[in-house]
């Protein structure tokens, strides 16, 4: 009896300890894109049109994220894949994207100087496309060629990529250029509010906010993810999912890029300063790690918890919002730099307001920055 019992206990312990450790395999229908995500995004398919070159056929979209997906077939099993994608902002700029593409054809990264020599410009009715041609050996040890082009619009960047068999792609130059020249856009609809990104690679998922004790869930219990809203020039008073603010008159609104909720620039004799507003769910690691992250950006040594109180100041804003403000001076990109940062915890998210630039300019902009913080309001 007892050995059986022991065996049962051991089996139960084994079950309990490894029940989540197994690799699962299954076949499932492909995910349909979420309607909420696709509503503004599929506007892209209606606001972009093109003429398909001869020999190009439409193919299913393996990722579900493409605006256009085409297959070019050559002799034998030679194939090339053409994709059209769009992302909000500038997606990190030219260099990271070119280096990402270079990685896909097994080429090492390049620097800005080399980039300038490799990128060509193509004038087309839709605008000036940047074009690059790459050839290398991919992960499967096959020689491949890529024709890549991108078009920067004020709020988004379009990518056109033909990748496949080296010899086949070489024969597709004219077709590729003809395709780019056939691209046209319908008038971009007026942006009345933040445009939900079609797909960004850095959208955090909504944090969980379980309601406890049988209480009714808050209608805002699921905060909108940090979203790269893509308004080309955000108005001075930006309606956000949760917070609103009013930027000073001398701050110039900038494209929001991938992660910013607000993005501004301020200029002076000393140069330019950058103001960013971002948010992360929860505490985003807490006060100290974030301040130390900022200190790291200015080449300053990290602080201990005990030193925190001496380096931060509290600022009471509107609607009972409490900011923790730091003023840091150090080095960035080899030049003296100063950063004013404010951290605010609100609605299950942590907001980071940051002004970075040359010392003199930041010193001059400091009162405006602190006044700006006081304009931040809860909805």
């Amino acid at each position, binding site marked *: 009896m007892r050995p059986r019992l022991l065996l049962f206990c051991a089996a139960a312990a084994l079950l309990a300890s490894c029940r989540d450790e197994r690799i699962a395999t299954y076949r499932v*229908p492909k995910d349909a894109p979420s309607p909420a995500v696709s509503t503004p995004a599929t506007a892209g398919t209606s606001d972009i049109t093109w003429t398909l070159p001869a020999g190009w056929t439409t193919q299913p979209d393996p990722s579900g994220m493409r605006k256009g997906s085409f297959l070019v077939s050559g002799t034998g099993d030679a194939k090339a894949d053409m994709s059209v994608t769009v992302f909000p902002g500038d997606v990190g700029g030219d260099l990271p994207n070119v280096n*990402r593409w270079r*990685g896909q054809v097994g080429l090492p990264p390049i620097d800005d100087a080399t980039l300038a020599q490799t990128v060509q410009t193509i004038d087309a009715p839709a605008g000036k496309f940047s074009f690059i041609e790459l050839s290398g050996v991919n992960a499967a040890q096959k020689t491949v060629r890529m024709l890549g082009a991108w078009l920067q619009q004020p709020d988004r960047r379009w990518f056109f990529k033909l990748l496949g068999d080296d010899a086949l792609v070489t024969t597709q130059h004219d077709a590729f250029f003809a395709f780019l020249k056939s691209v046209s856009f319908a008038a971009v609809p007026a942006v009345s509010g933040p445009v939900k990104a079609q797909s960004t*690679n850095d959208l955090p998922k909504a944090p969980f906010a379980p309601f406890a004790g049988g209480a009714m869930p808050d209608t805002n219990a*699921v905060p909108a993810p940090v979203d790269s809203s893509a308004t080309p020039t955000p108005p001075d008073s930006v309606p956000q999912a949760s917070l609103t603010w009013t930027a000073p008159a001398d701050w110039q609104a900038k494209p929001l890029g991938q992660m910013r909720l607000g993005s501004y620039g301020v200029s002076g004799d000393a140069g330019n300063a950058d103001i960013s507003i971002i948010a992360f769910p929860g505490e985003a690691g807490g006060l100290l790690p974030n301040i130390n992250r900022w200190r790291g950006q200015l080449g300053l040594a990290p602080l201990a918890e005990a030193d925190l109180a001496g380096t931060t100041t509290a600022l009471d804003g509107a609607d009972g919002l409490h900011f923790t403000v730091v003023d840091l001076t150090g080095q960035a990109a080899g030049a003296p730099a100063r950063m004013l940062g404010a951290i605010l915890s609100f609605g299950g998210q942590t907001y980071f307001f940051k002004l970075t630039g040359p010392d003199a300019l930041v010193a001059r902009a400091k009162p405006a920055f602190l006044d700006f913080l006081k304009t931040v309001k809860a909805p």
Partner: protein
Amino acid sequence: MHDLLKPFVRFFVSLRLTVVLLVFSILLVFLATLDQVHLGVWGIQHKWFFTFIVVQSVNGFPVPVFPGGYFIGGMLLINLIAAHVYRFKFSWKKSGIWLAHIGVILLIASQFFTGLMQRESQVQFNLGETKHYSEDFLLDELAVIDATDPKFDDVVAIPESLLARDEPIQHPKLPFRIVTRLYYPNSVVQMRSQAPNAPLSPATMDIGTQVAVTPQPITYKPDEHNMPTACVELIGPEGSLGIWLVSPWIEQSQAFDYAGRTWQLVMRSKRYYTPYAMTLLQLKNDVYPGTDIPKNFSSQVRIHDEAKGDRDVLIYMNNPLRYGGLTYYQYQMNKANGLSVLQVVRNPSWRLPYLACLLVALGLVIQFGLHLIGFIRKRSAAVKT
């Protein structure tokens, strides 16, 4: 009985053992409640209750500090059964005690089964969206998807816990093995332009080369979710295919071609697929007239089940849907964004506690009833004499 067995039997049937185990149970609950400050409600369940021995890390070394919930519960169960078998002899007069004890045994066993088999997850969908899976609240997985088929995805889902181990992962359905080169159980991923001074990650492929990863302390708060990041190297027979950075921060899958097939990599909340799908048709957020005080939250969903046909159901507060062995509760809602979240609970043994309580109640009623009848008989006999 063999003389050697007698001390064991005496030990397992003793009432003293019962008392000691009950005291340990009380202490277990008390200490686990205190530890909740550090580990949160999820963490302590695994550390204190769903374990045989509670292990505390002292200077990095695991030290057993207390018997765990499984041990105490298991011992109580053995104690109860042993005492029952050893001491009680069945008779109709004691049938109530028998029933009550079987009820208590069932109650302990049901908790054990619940601990083993209960699973909580959520379905998060927008208006009009159809989902045929729910997602785990806590666990993440690396999905390696063979997306070559235009209609179907062949998924190999690797639990995050396997990535955390420093061991290569091999699976018969994958033409490459997966080696974890970096793993953070909680992290923040930013575009590199936002954190220019952050150290480079080992990633060589796709978006991984453009982002910066900052490790974060593990969170145990019930309203926060750890966001792991891993850099995984895929190695085929002819060598490395590259290193990809995967994290729930990167929602879009990263695609590449290998061995004549199109593959996608994505780290996401662990998914539990169901043989049916659900579409969110309508959501309602009623308030009391003239106020902003919420009165009711409800989601109207359509179940698409090939076996049973389509069916529309309304899920609202305190009125869950029980379907396919799962219970769907209205959990969260954001009407402005057309988003509804249902909590999905799988607990195959959910009926056992009810049955156990019924048995205990029935046993007590019978036992006290028999006593009462005996007492009344004696009394009436005494009155007659």
